[in-house]
């Protein structure tokens, strides 16, 4: 019964850390604990939450996905490009225009296909996830450059901008999207057989194989979901900026891995939770916001963030030893 106990402890630690952080920032700045700023932080982290949920599922299977930032950029750019100018098929004068829904679906499909490809390479050719997704990081970034020709695609219209800057029932649309993603994935990881398989594979792959779980199928599906969620993030970023930037999502994989680790999910797999990652993402978001509110020098900000991540990993190590 040691696993549930340490799981709870990890969750508890992130909560305490978040509480202390918020307390300190409220004392240091009277602007921190306001409703407006609260929405700011939530809007800013909603993209990272979507990506990090996918990352958590992958890390639980003891994998990793370095390609999320590039996949995000490509999916966002595909959506923006199709929305703005459709596709002209060379040769036979065929032009295909896209509705907003069509363009968004094409973006989501792009992310899913790239994620699926990651999973296929990893399971079919036994390539370590670190290497396979490192390849995809470069491939997807290159494809983004090809698709955008290196220039931003801007001016996507008010309807599309609603996703990134609109409100629904008093809550920003971005926050709604992130919440739906979190609720669905918590349900999936805790209440379905697929969720149990994910934990089992990360805990002990051989035992899982012997007990009849189709490991490859689960893994491919996990990477596909992560690709899909990166695409969701890509559409959110693109809409928020009203522009698809060719260099969007640079180093997002690091923020996302940081959220997962701070949230107490073990990088060796099998132990962790979606809610922990959400807390991790909130901690990073609050830290980013707070350091700017206090006008801390950009040099020091990087140092502070680095130490927070190290601290989280050290606690994680201590936990797994106790287990």
């Amino acid at each position, binding site marked *: 019964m040691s696993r549930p106990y340490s799981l709870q402890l990890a969750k508890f630690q992130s909560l305490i850390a978040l509480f202390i952080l918020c307390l300190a920032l409220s004392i240091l700045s009277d602007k921190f604990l306001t409703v407006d*700023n609260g929405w700011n932080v939530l809007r800013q982290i909603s993209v990272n939450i979507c990506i990090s949920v996918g990352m958590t599922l992958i890390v639980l299977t003891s994998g990793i996905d370095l390609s999320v930032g590039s996949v995000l950029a490509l999916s966002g750019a595909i959506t923006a490009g199709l929305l703005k100018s459709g596709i002209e098929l060379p040769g036979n004068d065929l032009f295909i225009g896209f509705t907003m829904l069509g363009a968004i679906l094409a973006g989501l499909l792009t992310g899913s296909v790239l994620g699926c490809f990651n999973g296929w390479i990893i399971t079919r050719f036994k390539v370590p996830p670190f290497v396979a997704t490192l390849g995809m990081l470069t491939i997807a970034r290159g494809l983004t450059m090809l698709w955008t020709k290196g220039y931003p695609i801007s001016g996507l219209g008010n309807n599309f901008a609603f996703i990134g800057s609109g409100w629904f029932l008093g809550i920003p649309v971005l926050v709604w999207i992130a919440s739906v993603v979190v609720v669905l994935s918590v349900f999936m990881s805790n209440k379905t057989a697929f969720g149990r398989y994910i934990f089992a594979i990360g805990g002990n792959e051989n035992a899982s194989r012997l007990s009849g779980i189709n490991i490859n199928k689960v893994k491919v599906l996990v990477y596909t979901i992560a690709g899909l969620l990166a695409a969701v993030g890509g559409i959110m970023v693109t809409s928020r900026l009203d522009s698809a930037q060719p260099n969007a999502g640079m180093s997002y994989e690091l923020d996302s891995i940081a959220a997962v680790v701070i949230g107490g999910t073990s990088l060796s797999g099998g132990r962790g939770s979606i809610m922990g990652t959400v807390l991790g993402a909130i901690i990073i978001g609050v830290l980013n916001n707070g350091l*700017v509110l206090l*006008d801390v020098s950009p040099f020091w900000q990087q140092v502070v963030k680095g130490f927070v991540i190290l601290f989280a990993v050290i606690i994680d190590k201590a936990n797994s030893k106790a287990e």
Partner: protein
Amino acid sequence: MKLFKVLLLLLVIFAGCNGDSKKSDEPKKIAIVVSTLNNPWFVFLAETAAKKAKELGYESKIFDSQNNTALETDHFENAISSGYDAVLFNPTDATGSVANATKAKNADIPVFCMDREINSPDAATSQILSDNYSGCIEMGKYFVKTLNKKGKYVELLGIVSDNNTWNRSKGFHSIVDNYKELKMVAQQSADFDRNKAMEVMESLLQANPDINAVFCGNDAMAMGAYQALSAANKADKVKVFGFDGAEDAITSIQQGKVTATAMQFPKVIAETAATFADEYFKGKRDFPKKKPVAVELVTKENIENYIGYGKK
């Protein structure tokens, strides 16, 4: 292993001879080594240089250094060994890139620097430079005038390890800091990135709801800052200043969203570099060591003269 090395050596010699025999009849080849293609400004610079080289009748190839001086070294070595005749060079680092340019010079390949400077008097045949510092002095003067010499502002810096980030910031502050009633309440980095600028600006507006202006180290950040201001219903109270002359910013000045930007002329820089290479091939040797390309202030008063990255 020894046999392999000998073979490799033979191959190199053979390739070398091959290259030499080519030189007489085939068109000369120009390498365009650019610091990064992850920023539309540099994409435009590299593509314009390639276009001009083609117009002049040369073959050209673009090499992307990805902001990495070590990768740049590889590109130079490859360009030298595969028989390129000139390098149009946008360096990654003012000091780190000197060794790369020197390597080409020692192989009798002329190097023409574009936009960014290298700290060496003779490694490059000529340097065609965008004057970021002076451009931001003009920007600073206009900033002071627009704000009537008083008010609060924030500054968004570019990537803090980039020379141009500080050239721009220093030029700006050399003017603005003389006015005691113009107070900078925060200085933060947004990495030349539109999304980061939006997030940083959102947070800055919480801490400083009463600012009058924001000075951004490039136009992508100016656009991000404007978006945050617009979402907070403060776009009409806070003036946005950018730098670069990107298409988005020009359109935004027309629409009255952004107050001013500083136009750099990547087209002029790239075309001058390609033309210099052409003149070098035809025997000219006395090039100016440095050819500064002025940066022009773009505001609503003169916006009708400009398009993205250049003049109409």
